[in-house]
């Protein structure tokens, strides 16, 4: 089987939740919708304090092309627009809505059941109007990906069902519970970008998902289900493209350069719901899991629900929780607290115990080479790490530190427990700063 070089095999821990169907989480009494939920410009609020809003009503408009609107996840009253703790650790503006419990629909978007007859532009506009971003974690506005320039013909849509992060199972559940909707979403994407075929890449440790998707794809033309090698980070865009389409792209190139567009399973479902059902992105699937959760669950969550409340709905925390992570253990964000609203990019909440926590230190490198042989980006990781440590930013740049995809494999394997990924991040930001400085100087 074709796969990529490097990568690691962390224990999957999917058994905690993979047999649990997605349940609707109880809608919270108050939601807090952060304005910054995606890569690109934050959205701008279009409602004021005291305004009555309906479920799905636009409450914030895109702040630029690479930006999307946000919608009210509940019906009720806008209580405030103020700073609130954000997953990033900073306090950022959020719209606070008090839930009236009615879920009165706004019906802003007309359903398009016969979407095949709708012009492609209208489909793209719909995807944007519905506030859809990549739900795999990167949160890149989806309509941008659906608008490839004319000179970059797209031949393949890849649906990312790899879900390679340990612990997370919400994409798996979507593939099992709503495979047909995911496939229609994929077909809409295919039509938007003018591609010939769709390939769904699923890690081969999820045979049931492969089977369900295959069964539903049977009558569809030009849809392939590809079981890909189980190896982290198989779900990273570049690695998945390598595995299913054979094209090896550097990070500095966009997938469309290889004629490929990649969309996550959850994003495909959101596209289906937005186009066929006229439903804006107001909820998403979240896996609440880990040894620090009393009864792990897969939940369909209104955006803006506090992580605390989700943890409560999963039976609460065990007393020895040491870290709350938004996302998976390899790339997720450790949060100072769980008093933070769920966002469009929140694929999971992972609670790890204190005694399982990892600490990295600036120990000397013992030159074992493991970080380099496991780096999926093919970087001379150990040497870049050393260069960054010594402040030799030029060398780090020459060694292509910017190609690092921050997957975490190097830190994962380093027997000296060096914070390699962290060093890469520092190196990248210093190189970018240096480049900006050079530009201004020139």
């Amino acid at each position, binding site marked *: 089987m074709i796969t990529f070089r490097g990568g690691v095999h*962390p224990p999957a821990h999917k058994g905690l939740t993979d047999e649990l169907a997605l349940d609707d989480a109880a809608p919270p009494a108050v939601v807090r919708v952060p304005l910054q939920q995606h890569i690109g410009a934050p959205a701008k609020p279009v409602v004021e304090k005291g305004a009555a809003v309906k479920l799905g009503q636009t409450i914030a408009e895109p702040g630029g092309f690479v930006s999307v609107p946000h919608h009210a996840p509940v019906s009720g009253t806008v209580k405030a627009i103020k700073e609130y703790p954000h997953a990033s650790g900073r306090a950022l503006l959020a719209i606070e809505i008090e839930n009236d419990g009615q879920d009165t629909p706004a019906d802003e978007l007309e359903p398009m059941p016969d979407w095949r007859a709708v012009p492609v532009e209208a489909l793209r506009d719909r995807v944007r109007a519905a506030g859809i971003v990549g739900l795999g974690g990167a949160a890149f506005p989806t309509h941008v990906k659906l608008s490839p320039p004319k000179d970059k013909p797209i*031949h*393949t849509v890849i649906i990312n069902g790899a879900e390679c992060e*340990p612990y997370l199972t919400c994409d798996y559940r979507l593939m099992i519970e709503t495979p047909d909707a995911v496939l229609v979403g994929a077909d809409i994407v295919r039509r938007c970008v003018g591609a010939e075929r769709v390939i769904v890449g699923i890690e081969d440790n999820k045979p049931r998902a492969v089977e369900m998707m295959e069964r539903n794809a049977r009558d569809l033309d030009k849809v392939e289900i590809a079981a890909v090698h189980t190896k982290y980070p198989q779900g990273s865009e*570049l690695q998945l493209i390598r595995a299913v*389409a*054979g*094209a*090896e*792209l*550097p*990070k500095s*190139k966009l997938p469309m350069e*290889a*004629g490929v567009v990649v969309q996550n399973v959850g994003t495909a479902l959101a596209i289906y719901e937005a186009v066929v059902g006229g439903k804006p992105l107001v909820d998403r699937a979240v896996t609440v899991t880990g040894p620090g959760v009393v009864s792990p669950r897969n939940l369909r969550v209104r955006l803006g629900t506090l992580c605390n409340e989700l943890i409560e709905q999963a039976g609460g925390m065990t007393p020895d*929780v*040491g*870290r*709350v*992570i938004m996302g998976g*253990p*390899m790339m*997720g*964000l*450790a*949060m*100072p*607290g769980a008093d933070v609203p769920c966002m469009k990019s929140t694929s999971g909440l*992972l609670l*790890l115990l204190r005694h399982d926590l*990892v*600490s*990295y230190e600036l*120990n*000397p490198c*013992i*030159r*074992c*080479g493991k970080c380099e*042989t496991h*780096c*999926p*980006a*093919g*970087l*001379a990781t*150990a*040497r870049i790490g050393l260069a960054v440590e010594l402040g030799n930013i030029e060398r780090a740049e020459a*060694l292509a530190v910017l*190609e690092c995809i*921050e997957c975490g494999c190097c*830190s*994962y*394997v*380093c*027997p*000296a*427990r060096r*914070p390699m*990924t962290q060093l890469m991040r520092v190196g990248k930001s210093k190189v970018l700063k240096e480049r900006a400085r050079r530009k201004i100087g020139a």
Partner: protein
Amino acid sequence: MLSVSSSPHVRAREDAGRIMRDVIIALVPALVASYFFFGIAGIMLTAIACIAALATEIALLAWRGRKVDHAAVYSALVTAVLMTFCVSPLVPWWMVVVGAVVAIGIGKHAFGGLGHNIFNPALVGRAFLMSAYMVPMTTWKLPDGISGATPLAHMKIGAYDKLPSLWHLALGDIGGCIGETSAILLLAGAAYLLVRRVITWHVPVAYLGALAVFVWIFGGTTKGGAGLDVHVFNGLGPMNLGAIPVHLLAGGVILGACFMATDYVSSPMTPKGMIIFGVGCGILTGVIRIFGGYPEGTSYAILLMNMTVPLIDRATMPRLFGARRLMKKKGAA
């Protein structure tokens, strides 16, 4: 209290301490075997060297104001064991103390401590002892109690009829250094390290493979208890496969290829680099054994190749993802 730190939040179980501990575990069978071949001396000497190496490590770390961590402690132990493994069981106890102090002090800390040493510290210690105390370092004890020459020394002077059989070479009840004689037990230890992913196959296979090819081409010498063909010559000659097992099993080459040339710090980092390094070690070992003045060549071969590691590392960068096969379209496929 929640702790916040950069991802990833999980890690592989292997850490430096555990890796070094695995190396020690892998060496224990050969040490136990030495007890049966040479008596308690080898074990005593190893223990003494360990204490000396540890004391030196801790003292130097303290003096340099560094913290004493698992990795440093375990790696000092590995150095001590490996150094003792390549001295004769007849050396006096103080000699291994000198060797251990030199190995840790000069081989390791003079270069900046763990991670910075260019040479394998154990081999630095051994090389020092070799040059300072040549005679005790090359006086051997045979398992039957009398002292005598090692198989490689027999090979060197053409005394092929004195060579032990391949079986004895593999088992190790022959003359030689404390831990190098039992090829079988060393290979078992190496297999353990391979399974535990402490080492990869690249260095040992390249090393032993290159040595085999080299002696096949240049040193077809076999004779004696092995009951093999008698083609007696030393130097250029017809290609004689029989030379290969003798050269691989005798002397310290298996110890060197599996436990010393694989030392992380003083060997290359990428698989490609490891293969180049291993091949270099194999050829140099062959050159020294067949054309050089010493019967054995393992330590000097590895030390010489250690010097080339920065060069090899520079020449064998990993291949950047996307650097080749960029844009290979598979649209129609």
